């Protein structure tokens, strides 16, 4: 991009531009076709803001998704980015292939609770263990929306459908699973918590490894009633916030005062800083075992626990481990991808 850099908050006339000279309009998507009030729309808005504020070049973003209401949302943000609405539960493999082909891309994969925890659980777990650099978002409402309200595998035990059917199986905690399997940035948020979700998304953009964000996002049509544990009302009443999350991007040269006794600072791969002000005294987001214990406690207490559960910015990611050249494989010239005649002659000689 040959765009001029305009400092964020500079006094230039016209709409506010970010550090690469784009306005928030440049990050917008098409008009949503989801239900009015759907939590997913709020998440799309936060993605737009985070990408804008981080000054990400939209042409280098890819937005793979699976199938379902959540997986439709890439149409509603970042029109200037390539999307791939793939098959049900298989977005991780498409994202993996795309990043193998071009490691310079920034990948934000959107999935739902059905797309991830049921049909897609196989690809999900293998994605997590590879620590591929991807932001994996589950827009989690506990039901299948497009097929009209059946339970998904993240529905809580005892949660009730509109029809009165009660869920009698325990939920899969995608965050606990992701932490155990090797994801290096794992958190849960709520589509209604603008501030927390924004900070977590910006930190996600700065992270170079697998980010797994489970965003509870109520389904206003099929799962927002009394008896549901994924309704706006229930989440607001039962949300337990682990930390106050704030984020200082690397390009903003600001000294933020923080109390090291009450706040943990995590330096991200690109130099950005994630500040987690502890609301629970002894919580340490770099301790896997502690994270898993706390998530188990939250289940037992019926809490909707949100915050950054686990973060490790230093773990090697999958593309580094593969030792691929820096240039995107997709763009390597023939002179590099087709060895010369002497190479073939040498192989033939060995086979004689």
């Amino acid at each position: 991009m040959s765009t001029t850099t305009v400092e964020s908050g500079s006094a230039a006339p016209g709409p506010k531009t970010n550090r690469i000279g784009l306005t928030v309009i440049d990050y917008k998507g098409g008009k949503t076709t989801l239900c009015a009030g759907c939590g997913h729309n709020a998440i799309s808005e936060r993605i737009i803001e985070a990408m804008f504020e981080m000054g990400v070049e939209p042409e280098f973003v890819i937005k793979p998704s699976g199938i379902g209401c959540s997986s439709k949302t890439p149409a509603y943000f970042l029109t200037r980015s390539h999307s791939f609405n793939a098959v049900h539960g298989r977005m991780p493999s498409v994202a993996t292939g795309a990043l193998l082909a071009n490691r310079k891309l920034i990948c934000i994969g959107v999935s739902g609770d059905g797309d991830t925890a049921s049909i897609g659980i196989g690809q999900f777990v293998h994605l997590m263990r590879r620590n591929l650099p991807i932001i994996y978002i589950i827009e989690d409402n506990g039901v299948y929306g497009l097929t009209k309200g059946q339970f998904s595998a993240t529905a809580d035990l005892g949660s009730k459908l509109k029809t009165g059917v009660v869920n009698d199986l325990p939920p899969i905690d995608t965050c606990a699973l992701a932490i155990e399997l090797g994801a290096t940035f794992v958190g849960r948020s709520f589509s209604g918590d603008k501030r927390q979700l924004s900070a977590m998304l910006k930190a996600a953009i700065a992270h170079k490894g697998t980010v797994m964000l489970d965003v509870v996002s109520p389904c206003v049509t099929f799962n927002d009633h009394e008896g549901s544990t994924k309704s706006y009302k229930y989440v607001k009443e039962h949300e337990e916030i682990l930390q106050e999350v704030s984020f200082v991007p690397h390009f903003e040269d600001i000294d933020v005062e923080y109390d090291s006794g009450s706040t943990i600072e995590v330096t991200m791969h690109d130099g950005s800083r994630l500040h987690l002000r502890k609301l629970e005294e002894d919580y340490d987001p770099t301790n896997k075992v502690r994270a898993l214990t706390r998530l188990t406690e939250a289940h037992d207490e019926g809490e909707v626990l949100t915050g950054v559960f686990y973060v490790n910015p230093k773990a090697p990611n999958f593309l580094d481990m593969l030792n691929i050249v820096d240039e995107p494989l997709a763009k390597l010239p023939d002179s590099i991808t087709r060895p010369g005649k002497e190479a073939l002659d040498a192989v033939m000689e060995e086979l004689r």
Partner: protein
Amino acid sequence: MATTDVVPREAAGGMGRKRIVNDMSIQVATVNGSGSQSSNTVLLRSIFQMGVPVSGKNMFPSNIAGLPTWYTIRANKNGYIGRKKEIDFLVAMNPETAQEDTMSLAPGASVLYDEPLALHKLRNDLVFYSVPYDKLVATVCPEAKLRKLVKNMVYVGVVANLLTIEMAEVEKAIRKQFAKKAKAANLNLAAAQAGFEYAKANLEKRGAFYIERMDKTAGKIIIDGNSAAALGCMFAGCTVVTWYPITPSSSLVETMIEYMKGYRIGPDGKATFAIVQAEDELAAIGMVVGAGWAGARSMTATAGPGISLMSEFAGLAYYVEVPGVIWDIQRVGPSTGLPTRTSQGDILSTAVLSHGDTKHIMLIPCSVEECFSMATDAFNLAEQFQTLVFVMSDLDLGMNNWMADPFPYPATPIKRGKVLSKEDLDRLGGFARYKDVDGDGIGYRTLPGTPHPAAAYFARGSGHNEKAQYSERADDFENNMERLNRKFETARSFVPRPEITKGNKAKIGIIGYGTSHWGITESRDQLRDEYAIETDYLRLRAYPFTREVHEFIEQHERIYVVEQNRDAQMLSLLKLDLRPELTTRLRSIAHITGLPLDARSITDELTSMEGK
């Protein structure tokens, strides 16, 4: 045996009266996991080095160690390297199968057996040679635990003596086989020599079979089809390989890893490729599709069960129009079937793999040369037509050793298809992903990461219009499907053309493909020499069918379609493509036993259908 040679064996029971030179098949029956592969390769190479055309086929169980396995070496002065139905020389090393193997031989065959098996008591119309392997191996191999592995090399020496294979060539082959392990080479050579000397001193040559020096293998190489395919893919500029292990395709990627490490590491020590073992075939094809969408030359290799699992993604790739190459090393289905046996059983299902109206390009190699050359064709076609290309190899081709001329350096340039760059977009202002601008049904695509605000499009498996926007409109759907059909029609003119062999106004045509070719070429000679039946022959190399296929069928009264499956799958595909009045000309010779199709089976069936 259901069939014996039509030309009576004068040597049958005649024990040494007739000399049969450079025309035999040798079968070595061993136990899986006993290290017999090295011995078999040495025997094969020794004959090859004598200048005699040769092929080796491994018939092995789906097992790591302990079950019976057979290796068949065919030496033939005329260059017939397909499987021969009859065994002329049996090396019986496996007590478990020795009796049955011996009983199934035709009269006049030779049997070399381990002395304690006492096979000579079974029949009196065979030539028997016995060798006390354990005694011989104990003298050359002091280390008891190595004896099991070295024992097999003893028979190589015995066979060399009995068939007049020169010991110098055996030594050369052993040195090549154990090139990096001098100690192992010496030990194995001692074992082979012990066998040779024993035979010379103790066995009286009575069988009819001889290997004599020829000059038909000079300059040739020996390679299996999977290795040839791996090489081909490397030279085709492949950058992303994602796979899930499955017999008989695993060795394709495993060999490719070795080649890529050797020749595709950049000066900075970094790989110009990514090879990823996926969690299953669904993920393997998903990664191929993701990488193809993002602009890499991506591929996977699999077999029937994997193809079945890939079917949903195959439909996505067809409809979203994403390039990718899939090697199907066919094995016997349905279901798990016979995982270590060969077939051409995935043809029909792969042609239309996935739900809804889908069609896929298939390339069908018959030889190791084509495994190599079709790799470039496959990647070029995939990117030209923005679709998956399936290369339909099989176990016989993929896992067995074939001799070939050294592969020429690819003459075909790497062609990346219609991809718009930033500069193109600057000039055009924008583009419609699925618009048929050129009338060939092929739209223009952009790759993620193209720095232009109008570069992005929304790839989706749901209904879409020319601009890749979501659409459920009847006209959008129909127009798009018609364009996809036009694209497939265009492909007819670009896929590899069939190979046609025509004689003198034959009324009978044979259509075959893949490894059936080797049985067919030999069968055509049998038909001419034994029955005076002239045939023309068309070898299919791709689907969709090109114009020449229709013409060939029009030119012949009767067409025999020869293939290795039960349901005449290629014949069925041909019927879908042909004018109705031509379909009645097609007759099926479809065989599937799990063993490579032999000439005699074709000849017998064709002559029977011809009323001979």
